[in-house]
């Protein structure tokens, strides 16, 4: 009985020891492979792929950027972070995140793996917005990305001072490349002021406001759709009437925040011959960078107003 017990104990100790050795060896073997060779490159993360895209435009060859929210076919509002995301974030030296509760999972992961050297750019703070700002889709605001890109260049300068001139030159190139988009917005605003628009969800509201459009869909309804809760029947009827009574010139349809109700609203718009413009939370890839994506959205809205053309998917 006693020998039996001590045998079990000995075996357990041996098994645990082997396990520990195994884990130690694999850690030693794996670590240099993933960290080595790229020592001079800054590891960075954009919580959303549009921020990751701009960050890689500013950082160029000295930055290796990955994005967390990058699938334009899913709803980012219902995203659940996985263990691999936590692993990626814990390694990053520079992080750009949206804030306003859009990517609060980032704050949790960052808190779980503290690193005093890591730099975090929260777009909400760059713009000086409160956490309860009703519309989190900040990257659609024309003033957002120039301000964020500036902070990105500044932080990159600090992380790699020897390449400061390179980052600053990239920043100038980026700012210049926004011109066609900003011009298109200004032109639309001058030519078609107060264009009445219906939406499902507030994703493009900032852009529509910049274009001088009137969003006639009640914000409470937009927020209900965004948050995936039941909208009031009054609002559903109101939204339907925007189409059947031809009160709007176009309908911006969020292709990522989709449910049975948004689909039936889209059908209502189509049967009333209101042009539909598909809009996105996440930058559609491949084929677009931030600037060309934003310009494509404005062009799609413009051709909906000028030629009543629908652009369901950009």
């Amino acid at each position: 009985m006693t020998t039996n017990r001590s045998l079990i104990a000995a075996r357990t100790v041996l098994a645990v020891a082997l396990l520990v050795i195994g884990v130690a060896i694999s850690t030693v073997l794996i670590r240099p492979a993933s960290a080595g060779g790229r020592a001079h490159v800054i590891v960075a993360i954009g919580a959303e792929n549009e921020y990751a895209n701009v960050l890689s435009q500013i950082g160029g060859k000295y930055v290796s950027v990955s994005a967390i929210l990058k699938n334009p076919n899913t709803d980012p509002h219902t995203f659940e972070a996985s263990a691999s995301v936590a692993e990626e974030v814990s390694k990053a030296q520079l992080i750009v995140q949206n804030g306003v509760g859009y990517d609060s999972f980032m704050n949790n992961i960052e808190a779980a793996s503290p690193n005093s050297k890591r730099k975090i750019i929260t777009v909400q703070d760059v713009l000086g917005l409160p956490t309860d700002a009703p519309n989190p889709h900040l990257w659609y605001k024309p003033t957002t990305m120039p301000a964020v890109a500036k902070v990105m260049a500044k932080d990159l300068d600090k992380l790699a001072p020897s390449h400061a001139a390179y980052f600053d030159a990239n920043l100038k190139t980026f700012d210049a490349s926004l011109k066609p988009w900003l011009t298109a917005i200004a032109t639309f605003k001058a030519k078609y002021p107060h264009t009445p628009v219906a939406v499902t969800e507030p994703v493009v509201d900032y852009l529509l406001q910049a274009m001088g459009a009137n969003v006639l869909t009640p914000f409470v309804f937009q927020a209900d759709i965004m948050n995936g809760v039941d909208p009031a029947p009054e609002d559903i009827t109101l939204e339907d009437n925007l189409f059947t009574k031809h009160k709007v010139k176009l309908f911006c349809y969020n292709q990522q925040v989709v449910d049975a109700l948004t689909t039936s609203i889209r059908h209502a718009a189509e049967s009333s011959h209101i042009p539909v413009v598909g809009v996105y939370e996440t930058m559609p890839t491949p084929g677009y960078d931030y600037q060309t994506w934003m310009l494509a959205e404005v062009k799609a809205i413009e051709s909906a107003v000028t030629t009543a053309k629908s652009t369901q998917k950009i």
Partner: protein
Amino acid sequence: MHYLFEPGFFSSSPVRVAFAIGAVSAIVSAIVGVFTVMRGQSFAGHALSDVATTGGSGAFFFNLSPLVGFLGAGVLGAGAMEAVGVQRLRGRDVATGIVLGFATGLAALFLYLDTTKSATTGVSQQILFGSIFTLDPSTIPLVVVMSVITLGVLAVIFRPLLLSSISPDLAAARGISVRVIGLLFMLALAVAVGLSSIAVGSLLSTALLIGPAATALRLTRNLRSALIVAGALGVAATWVGIILAYDSFYWFTSSQGLPVSFFIVALIFLGYLLSGLPAVRRRTSSPTAAAPTHSLERVAG
């Protein structure tokens, strides 16, 4: 300032769809519910709602209507439960708990896959708590057809079902196939759970199934009036719930309506509480305490 029917109520198409689907599901649920309570199968109803959750969330993954998922999984679950033997199932509480836990876990997997593979906003809300104002009018035909079939089957097996509910031994002695009747009833129960899941969500479907039936059995002394009262209570709770949810839009300055499922379930609960008040009970119950079963035997005989 405030009206019972706030402006636009009767012309609102979401309200009309909700009224139609709500009434049909409430009637089927209430009638099936009366037998469910009599047969002591409330637990089976709850188990089927867990299985329906799996089906509803899986339906999104395969691009089907949630109603198809609710009904499909419910019918499969009902068949499996009857094959195992529901009576024995109730005894095996550990195994049942683990199987139902697994079904709910599968639902969690499907909901995760739904939201990570495609844009399915509000899917958890719709499956678990219902979304009657956002139902597609094209679901009405399927709801009506399933209801008619279910009520038709119940009408055909009415007497044998009643007898085997009250006394399985007596029913078997009279040559009734208790097993077949039990299976048919489980299928009817699965449909009722599916329909009430579409109305108030799978988590709350048990309330619509059991609540009006239990209240009606407290208030009435024979089966026919219990069925009628249960159906009426179910429809009343659903319709008044819809009216209150519609009106709640005007209660707050923020123009934010409150969820309809809450109102429906709250009204059912309130009705059940009121029916238990001594004053109500004294007036309705007969000198013999076990009134319902007693009088039901008379109906059956």
